């Protein structure tokens, strides 16, 4: 019997199996989008919602994809509720301020994972979200634009802004 069917039939251990399989990816997504502390609450909500909605899952996409969409929407809802200006921020493109490092040419060596996570956490929510969805999770600009209610062009601009800011934060102290 498929895992989803076992969950629907309340077979002991089935929903835990779903959790064990998919929680790490969803927790990574939530940590990067909303921060570690909020991510713990959100992960619970994601799986509670998944449990409630399993009956609606038709199997058109893989279970992991379905769960990822559900989790991503929960993260976005959270950001919208917490940051009243989130939608506007996503559309705004303030003047780039990269601390002048653009004039220094290449400044980065090997990018440390923890440094990147820290840099991500410091990004404004709008461009951080686009960066996470595009560069970490591999979504296309069209999908991101649809999710966030922004144009493809805005999504591209936000992505570039996020990359430049990350470059600046990662390169801080490494350029002359």
């Amino acid at each position, binding site marked *: 019997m498929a895992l989803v069917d076992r969950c629907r039939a309340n077979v002991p251990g089935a*929903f835990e199996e779903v959790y064990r399989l998919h929680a790490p990816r969803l927790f990574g997504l939530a940590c990067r989008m909303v921060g570690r502390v909020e991510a713990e609450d959100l992960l619970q909500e994601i799986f509670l919602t998944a449990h*409630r909605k399993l009956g609606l899952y038709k199997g058109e996409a893989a279970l992991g994809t379905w769960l990822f969409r559900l989790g991503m929407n929960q993260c976005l809802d959270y950001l919208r509720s917490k940051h009243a200006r989130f939608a506007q921020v996503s559309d705004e493109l303030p003047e780039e301020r990269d601390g002048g490092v653009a004039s220094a040419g290449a400044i980065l060596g090997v990018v440390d994972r923890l440094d990147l996570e820290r840099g991500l956490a410091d990004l404004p929510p709008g461009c951080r979200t686009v960066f996470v969805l595009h560069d970490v999770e591999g979504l296309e600009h069209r999908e991101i634009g649809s999710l966030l209610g922004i144009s493809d062009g805005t999504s591209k601009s936000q992505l570039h802004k996020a990359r430049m800011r990350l470059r600046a934060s990662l390169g801080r102290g490494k350029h002359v």
Partner: protein
Amino acid sequence: MSELLDGSLSPAEQAVVRVHLDECAVCRGVYADLERVRAAARDLGPIAPPAHLWLEVAGRVRLETDAAPAVAAAGAPDVRRARLQWLGIAAALVLATLTAYVMRGPSQPPPAATEAPAATTAAGNPRDTRSVEAVAEEMRLALQHYENAISGLEAITRDSNSAMDPEVAATVQRNLMVINQAISESRAALVDDPTSGPARESLVDALRRKMDVLTASVSLINQMRQGDQIGAARATGRKSS
């Protein structure tokens, strides 16, 4: 440059940008950095959630799906509920104290036996003049407090096992077995080298995880005893907040 990186430019546009990159070392450097940032982002993998989160999820799922009224709630003495809550608070306080100890070291002044001329580190900070024995003793006492709190939580989860969903109880036991193994290994490492920082941190981390699992278990038992309605209300409250 980002669009070139992502391959979303037309061939003509790509050619124009590439010609510029060939001529401009500064832009070439920026482009190389952006490639590194993007490559590093792609390598960011999943993050394992804390062990206690599954217990929270399982408990809340059970509260939502189990339609049976919580008869046990009526029989749950208030004094026992209060004890559970106080144990949770006490455990959290011990955890905070011990974590602070491990991160920063004890705040008490050194004992008289370690009197020595005031010395400083190269950075100008006062040198720690406590004896190894004094530090080990403080660590032992802190761990003892921690373990006492854990013992209290363990006793409650053992006594209240019937109040917990069998599936969740089995998960708790599996988690505890893994964590107990880690605690044993850390203790063995500390016997070999009582001053080992990594062994000490590993032990405290394992104890912290055990505390998380037990605290989550007690919380679940508490919810079961208070009745599913309260737990459901909490779940609804979280959802709507």
